[in-house]
């Protein structure tokens, strides 16, 4: 890379037409969130005894965790396998993971009947080692802490030596500053330990999230019910990591009028077809092994959703990215990575909702307007916080959009970031 630009806070006005839309959605979602907290789950959701889990688990939690996988896959690539040129994308991916997991927890709190007891799994007296959910919960808690620790050097880099708290808080300037210096020194030396821990913790809970539904052999449709679910969840999480980084990077460069890091993105896109192929191979082998291929074309809702998930979400992007021309064009990269994200998110929705067949169905489940608005509001808030953080901290490394050459991408009037998650 001839022109190397270090990460810098993005200089752009916070408000735009896009952010206004996001703020409106975030406020609507916040109001619905409040409504659920005051009036309870029956008032706000369509959940019942037949359908104990809805989109807050399938989308906010399960898809949220999967789509935050860019954090650990890029860390593994750049820091563990030392593909140093990809350091430029580590920070945005880390920030996405950090915010992604934070919003997973906020979404989960809406779903928990006794959200104020969410800390209970930390008490050794309540540890329940047989529970898959216990393992997921503990791993996510530790991993979220690791992500914040990994972000600290970025805070130190920005504010070390120039802490300037507003108003009366200024008496803490010295304390905060020396604390940042300590963080900087300590993490400068030991950050690797946290990076590896982050990768291990991710592998553990990404797979265990798949184990969750293995406890319902009589309820989960045979297209998805398999003891291989944890392996499939881990492989799909690894596969969606880079596409998520590509997707975000392209959106961010449009929104902030930066030159897209096309070369880097094409570089990591090379791994994606391989990872998708491995995932697809295990998925098909598992279907054959369990004699479940016959369900693929049975014509039910489940079989249609399965075909969309695999055809549009796995096979299509794999084929697109096998083409060098597609990999080297922003449009090709964006289309393919969007499809992978769609495919993995749909897989989580399929496993947690579409495949779930209550034993004594009275009615089917469709999310209430409150459930949908909370989910949309959380995603909008996440995008807004992301925008604010990259404007304050040195996260994004990219040159301002050069006037001539390049397949110039003109920023659209409203940012299409709404879908980032």
């Amino acid at each position, binding site marked *: 890379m001839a022109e190397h630009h270090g990460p810098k806070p993005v200089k752009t006005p916070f408000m735009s037409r896009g952010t206004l839309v996001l703020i409106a959605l975030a406020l609507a979602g916040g109001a619905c969130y409040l409504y659920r907290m005051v009036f*309870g*789950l*029956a*008032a706000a*959701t369509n*959940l019942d*005894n*037949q359908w*104990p*889990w809805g989109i807050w688990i399938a989308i906010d939690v399960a898809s949220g965790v999967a789509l935050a996988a860019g954090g650990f896959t890029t860390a*593994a690539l750049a*820091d*563990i*396998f*030392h593909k*140093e*040129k990809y*350091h430029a994308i580590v920070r945005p991916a880390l920030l996405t993971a950090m915010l992604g997991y934070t919003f997973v927890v906020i979404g989960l709190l809406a779903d*928990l*009947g*006794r*959200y104020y*007891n*969410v800390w*209970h*799994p930390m008490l050794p007296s*309540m540890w*329940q*080692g*047989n*529970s*898959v*959910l*216990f393992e997921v919960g503990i791993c996510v808690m530790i991993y979220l802490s690791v992500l914040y620790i990994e972000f600290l050097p970025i805070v130190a880099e920005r504010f070390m030596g120039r802490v300037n708290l507003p108003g009366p808080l200024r008496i803490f300037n010295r304390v905060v500053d020396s604390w940042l210096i300590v963080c900087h020194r300590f993490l*400068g*030396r*030991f*950050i*690797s330990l946290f*990076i*590896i821990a982050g990768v*291990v913790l991710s*592998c*553990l809970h990404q*797979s*265990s999230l798949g*184990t*969750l*539904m*293995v*406890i*319902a*052999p*009589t309820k989960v449709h045979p297209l998805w019910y398999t*003891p291989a679910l*944890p392996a499939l969840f881990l492989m799909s999480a690894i596969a969606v990591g880079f596409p998520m980084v590509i997707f975000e990077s392209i959106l961010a460069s449009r929104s902030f009028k930066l030159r897209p890091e096309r070369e880097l993105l094409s570089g990591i896109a090379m791994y994606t077809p391989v990872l998708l192929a491995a995932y697809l191979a295990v998925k098909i082998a598992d279907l054959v092994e369990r004699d479940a291929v016959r369900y693929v074309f049975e014509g039910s809702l489940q079989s249609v959703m399965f075909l969309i998930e695999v055809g549009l979400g796995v096979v299509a992007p794999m084929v697109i990215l096998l083409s060098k021309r597609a990999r080297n064009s922003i449009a090709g990269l964006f289309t393919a990575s969007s499809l992978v994200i769609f495919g993995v998110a749909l897989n989580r929705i399929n496993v947690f909702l579409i495949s*779930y067949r*209550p*034993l*004594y169905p009275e009615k089917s489940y469709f999310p209430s307007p409150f459930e949908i608005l909370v989910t949309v509001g959380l995603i909008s808030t996440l995008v807004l916080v992301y925008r604010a953080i990259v404007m304050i901290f040195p996260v994004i490394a990219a040159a301002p959009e050069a006037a001539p050459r390049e397949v110039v991408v003109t920023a659209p009037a409203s940012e299409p970031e709404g879908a980032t998650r």
Partner: protein
Amino acid sequence: MTLDRREILRLAGVGCAALAAGVRPADAELAPSPASADSWAVLMDTVACIGCRKCEWACNVENRLSDAPASTFDNLKVVDAPRRPEHDSFTVVNRFRSPADRDHSWTVKLQCMHCADPACASACLVGALAKDQTGPVTYDAWKCIGCRYCMVACPFQIPAYEYNKPVQPQVRKCTFCAPRLAEGRSPACVAICPNEALTFGRRQVVLDAAHTRIQASPGRYFPHVYGESEAGGTSWLYLAPVEFAYTGLPALDDEPIPHHTERIQHAIFKSFVPPLALYGVLGLVMHALRGDNGHQENTSG
């Protein structure tokens, strides 16, 4: 100490092999049911049951479920439309009719089956649900975080939730009248049953009684005791005049439900060896490949 890169990668390879060897089904480590051999059980004889709903009423009173007057339970029509246990009714009686002869019917009392190896207790991340060695699957609302994973896990779809409560909602289900058992009394529904459709006793004794009934009148009963082995066995057992597909009880194989997940879970977390091995392997890779791709940045080995 300096290891050359080849040596380190070889070590990493060994680590991977150990990892693969570690992650294997760990059947031997699956915990046996916490229920003792002489735990309590109830036999529900759907042939003897007359569908009088006295058990529903007694349950309602014993557990203070709703303030519905006793007369509500005199309406015997409701048993004709299938109902499910709810947060304010831990047991319900449903009538089923023979497809061949609509006049031939039998009534089935539903409640928590109190599995020997309960999926709900295995699922619960804080141990709010637990199998007592005397038989009941108990619920400690104070521990519960309200995630409802127990409801996803239950193969009988029994736990109900108080969705209507904004604060302190509980998972609600039959308690097996655990407080009464502790006092040496039988559950309220058993105590009130007028036709001895419910038989309470030590599980093995009750099971023997069930088989004796089948042998004594083979024409009267389908030759199977539901719950003897379903999902690893349950504390509530059923006799029926026909095959159990016509009782509303789910068809289940003999494997305890928790084995499906615990086998995977315990393989991955066996003494934390696989996670630590993965940590070690990644550490070695990180160290070995250092400086491979041009400049070293802020990484220290």
